[in-house]
């Protein structure tokens, strides 16, 4: 007779298994319809299998992870640039990207954001093309080159900016805003031309050629509208929903915008995620970026190896690189550090300071030729010394 759901629940309650294995087990058992005796046997077998699948104590998981990521890494292309989805935004992929992730670079070579839009109602941003387009212009940084022609009038000692009406309309920006912005940013005389439509004239504070030419250069850097650093915004429709992709990244600023879904918006800049969303989000981001990079190249690496790397990189509460300035450089052992990079400096510094190496790690024990503390090398026999063996003997015979 098959047992019911509640019996299965009570029988499996205290099993030390991860949530998803438990879930599968319950579902499968319920579907197959087993009796109590069979259930007991199943539980026993599952526990046994689980224990067999677990990694053993003293196993060198780090080395296994290093090899498991390193070997597919050799097959990655050296220099790949790929376009994300639509052939518009350029992102670094392949080996350079993987190196970037484990090196914990402050700014990736091609920062990129995926901005999800809010979709609370049927006419919310995610479903409205017009709203989305306006938001995209709000976010994208507008420079003077996008909306005007700039001429340097050397005889009159001034800069003449001819604004394009159409471009201004498209980006929803007015001539007054342009004037204001230049006034704030450059601290110079800015005037709207009284004679010609859509013309702004900038006069330098000092009437010198040097000043004028410098001004001509610096007006190109002024962000008139949008977020500094977001070079381009691309609107894409995925299924029913519009999504924005940006070239350049500014997570904190973008999250302030109305219409942005703050729970799903993300960037490929791990350091930025760490600063805005915290260390756990950064860990998730490392795992996601690394697996995506590998998968894009057609390589499958077990996620456990990448999780181990991500955990190690984030275990001190900040994102540390795997390398000289991070994990390897912070090892306590002198020999381990010397074996990695800049050998002589480490040995010399340690000698001057009088450092002591306790030979507890793997590297240092290999250097001195001792068994390493991994696998069977980490198991020691501990004998308890009993003061009175003869007296104890009597007890045994009873």
């Amino acid at each position, binding site marked *: 007779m098959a047992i019911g759901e509640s019996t299965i629940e009570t029988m499996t309650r205290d099993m030390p298994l*991860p949530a998803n294995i438990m879930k599968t087990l319950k579902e499968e058992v319920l579907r197959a319809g087993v009796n109590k005796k069979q259930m007991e046997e199943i539980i026993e077998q599952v526990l046994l299998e689980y224990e067999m699948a677990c990694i053993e104590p003293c196993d060198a998981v780090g080395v296994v992870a290093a090899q498991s990521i390193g070997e597919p890494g050799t097959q990655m292309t050296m220099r790949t640039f790929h376009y994300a989805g639509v052939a518009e935004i350029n992102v670094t992929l392949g080996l350079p990207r993987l190196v970037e992730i484990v090196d914990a670079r402050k700014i990736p070579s091609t920062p990129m954001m995926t901005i999800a839009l809010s979709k609370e109602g049927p006419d919310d941003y995610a479903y409205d093309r017009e709203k989305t387009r306006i938001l995209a212009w709000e976010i994208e940084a507008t420079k003077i080159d996008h909306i005007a022609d700039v001429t340097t009038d050397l005889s009159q000692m001034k800069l003449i900016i001819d604004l394009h009406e159409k471009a201004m309309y498209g980006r929803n920006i007015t001539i007054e805003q342009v004037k204001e912005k230049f006034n704030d940013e450059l601290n110079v005389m800015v005037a709207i031309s009284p004679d010609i439509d859509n013309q702004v004239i900038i006069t330098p504070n000092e009437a010198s050629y040097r000043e004028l030419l410098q001004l001509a250069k610096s007006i190109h850097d002024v962000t008139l509208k949008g977020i500094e650093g977001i070079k381009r915004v691309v609107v894409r429709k995925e299924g029913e929903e519009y999504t924005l992709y940006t070239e350049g990244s500014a997570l904190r600023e973008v999250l302030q915008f109305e219409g942005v879904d703050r729970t*799903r918006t993300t960037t490929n800049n791990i350091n930025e995620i760490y600063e805005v969303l915290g260390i756990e989000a950064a860990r998730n981001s490392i795992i996601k970026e690394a697996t995506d990079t590998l998968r894009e190249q057609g390589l499958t690496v077990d996620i456990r190896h990448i999780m181990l790397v991500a955990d190690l990189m984030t275990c*001190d509460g900040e994102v540390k690189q795997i390398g000289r300035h991070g994990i390897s450089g912070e090892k306590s052992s002198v020999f381990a550090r010397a074996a990695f990079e800049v050998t002589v400096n480490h040995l010399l510094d340690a000698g001057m300071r009088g450092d002591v190496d306790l030979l507890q790690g793997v590297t240092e024990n290999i250097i001195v030729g001792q068994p390493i503390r991994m696998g069977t090398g980490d198991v020691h026999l501990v004998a308890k010394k009993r003061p009175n063996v003869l007296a104890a003997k009597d007890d045994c015979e009873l």
Partner: protein
Amino acid sequence: MTKFSLLDHESVPIHEIMHEAELKSVLSKYSIEKEQFPKIRVEDPVIKEIGATIGDVVKIKRKSHTAGEADYYRLVIE
């Protein structure tokens, strides 16, 4: 603009400050001191949000790719 909760973001797992009793049972389960836990900075945005202080241990309910759900612990440091 209203401030949103960081914990609502899909890549931020649930963080909660652990009670003394729960902490003790976890420490004895692994037979470790709390200094041996992985760390989290007190300036971490999530820590600021939940209001943990230095010396607290936070329990993090991670969505795991392999185990479905996994608990992780971090000690708040400065």
